[in-house]
């Protein structure tokens, strides 16, 4: 099953390579990975989505803790979280379908952030399911380019770390 884990790491050069390298050499597959700094400039937060049974997840977490730059690993499996993903989708938008696309975009509370004579670029924020649903609907018009940030997650309520 899919797990979303947050990894708090020292904000230093090479830490992303150490973490990603660990996944590769231990044979763990990364579905998505998002990294940024946190409220503490010395600490970065990675949100990593991985697929695997619980035993594999436990091994991943233990191996991550062996990296000196890893401060904390949180597996969000059993807790309430807010999770979001942002996508930019450039879709073919001929005059005949523009209205239709704009309606779809509005239903999803997404935004059109760039317009050319043949395309729209759409920004959507939400859960991975929501992004999937919108890209599914837009695919029939022809998606030219697309970029997703990967999931980011915070647990609800008071901070855990």
């Amino acid at each position, binding site marked *: 099953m899919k797990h979303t884990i947050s990894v708090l*790491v020292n904000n230093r050069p090479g830490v992303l390579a150490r973490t990603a390298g660990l996944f590769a*050499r231990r044979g763990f597959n990364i579905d998505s990975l998002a990294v940024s700094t946190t409220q503490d400039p010395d600490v970065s937060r990675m949100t990593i989505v991985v697929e695997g049974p619980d035993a594999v997840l436990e091994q991943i977490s233990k*191996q991550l803790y062996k990296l000196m730059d890893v*401060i904390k690993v949180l597996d969000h499996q059993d807790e309430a979280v807010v999770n979001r993903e942002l996508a930019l989708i450039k879709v073919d938008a001929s005059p005949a379908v523009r209205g239709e696309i704009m309606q779809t975009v509005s239903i999803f509370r997404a935004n059109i952030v760039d317009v050319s004579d043949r395309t729209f670029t759409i920004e959507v924020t939400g859960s991975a399911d929501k992004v999937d649903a919108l890209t599914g609907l837009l695919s029939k018009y022809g998606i030219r380019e697309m970029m997703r940030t990967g999931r980011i997650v915070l647990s609800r309520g008071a901070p855990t770390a």
Partner: protein
Amino acid sequence: MKMAGAQAMMEVLRREGVEVIFGYPGGSLLPIYDVLYDTKDIRHILVRHEQGAAHAADGYARASGKVGVCMATSGPGATNLVTGIATAAMDSVPIIAITGQVPTFAIGKDAFQEADITGITMPITKHNYLLTEAADIPRVFKEAFYIASTGRPGPVLIDFPRDVQQAELEFEYPDRVELPGYRPTLEGHPKMIERAAELIDAAERPLIYGGGGVNAAGAQAELVELAERAGIPATMTLMGKGGFPEDHELCLGMPGMHGTAYANYALHEADVIIAVGTRFDDRVTGKLDMFARSAKFVHIDIDPAEIGKNVLPTLPIVGDVKRVLGELVKKVARAKHSQWHDTVAGWKQQYPMGWKGDGLKPQFIIQEIHRATKGEAVIVTEVGQNQMWAAQWYPCREVRQFISSGGLGTMGYGLPAAIGAKVARPDKAVWDIAGDGSIQMNIQEMATAVQGKIPVKIAVLNNGYLGMVRQWQTLFFKNRLSQVDLAVGTPDFVKLAEAYGAVGLRVMEESEVRGAVEKAMAVDDRPCLIDFAVARDENVMPMVPAGGTVDDMLVD
């Protein structure tokens, strides 16, 4: 106090109690070697290949329990350390590798002798650093020693650019390290220890399966106490050799591929196995889902990631092996398990270790070395048949007495590691048990031993073959011997030893063994190599084929 980066490094090494550096100079290390020129209290041993420096530091660390230090220049010097660092990583050996690096302004520009050694060694170090600010030198070195030597030990590399070696800093040595992400668990959980004791008390056929962690933690006394108190026989892996005295009646020798038949039968039949500082390596377990099927496991290890990696234990205990055993032994009841011991004794009788046939046998040679050294030598091995025979035929009584590349299986490890071990233990005879293949992989270190007046003994079990591969080809590839015959081209080792300024001896027959070994023991100012012309086609037995089970065991 103001000083240059290179001086600051030397000052830290001094404060960390470093006695010796194994190294090889080069362009990116010139400032450090210039400081070394005036350094009288830290010995530098000049190796002849950087790989030798890493193995020597590793041998020094394994023999002494201290951190070993090696040093190499940027680029090829640094990449030559890689095999040695990986060897240390696989066997959890605390070494610090210091590499020169091109000046910071040249990094990333493909400068002369530039290699991204922190990138290259990321998967084979416990941690590594690229120093970019001279002010960081005291902290980084202090952290490096702390990380290498605590928790599950391992190698740490510090990449040290030349301009940072020359830059000035205000030297302040931190009195403690701050590593928020690194807090090894030392004390075992009391509740788990209690439950482990209950499980052991309820066992009918308990067995101790000990590994390198027993040596690393120096936990022999605690382990023996547990075994004697609760009447538990013990099998010790290649890495755990000496962690339980092998002349003890409860010791079953080594388990696994070339382990004793009785250790493997005991693993197969045991109902509770106490796995201590060990990682269920495939060379021990064979086919994992058939391994010790009737057993419940207590797994004691300092590295939480080892728990459940290969085998899911009934009772995991994370902590320092010595401390956990110390607590556990207080909780277990006295027991005898006479019936179980009778069974084990039956296997010992039925499947004794031995060899067959005539000729100069490697097993006999190692027995003779054991006799001549009263079982007190530090034994270092190369990798292959020589390694397995050394493990089988040189019983050890003490921790840190047997030094071998177990995890990575690095040919060429033995000679440089023996040099490091002899530097660490000048009071002990140090023997490198070698093969004609392995010894040639780092034979240049003869010069290191001669120049450093390091009187190691080298026993080359010379069968003119890459023996272990030859054995597999014989047994599993219809004796189609592919690229394993080394007889042509192998030098005359006696002449070679003499050419290096060492002592060389040759033994052709059994009757000459004792005399030659005694002669070697008398050499105390330079290395001595004995070339033993051993029976060519001898196999290491018993053998559980790779991925096999105890039922597949070959005995001769």
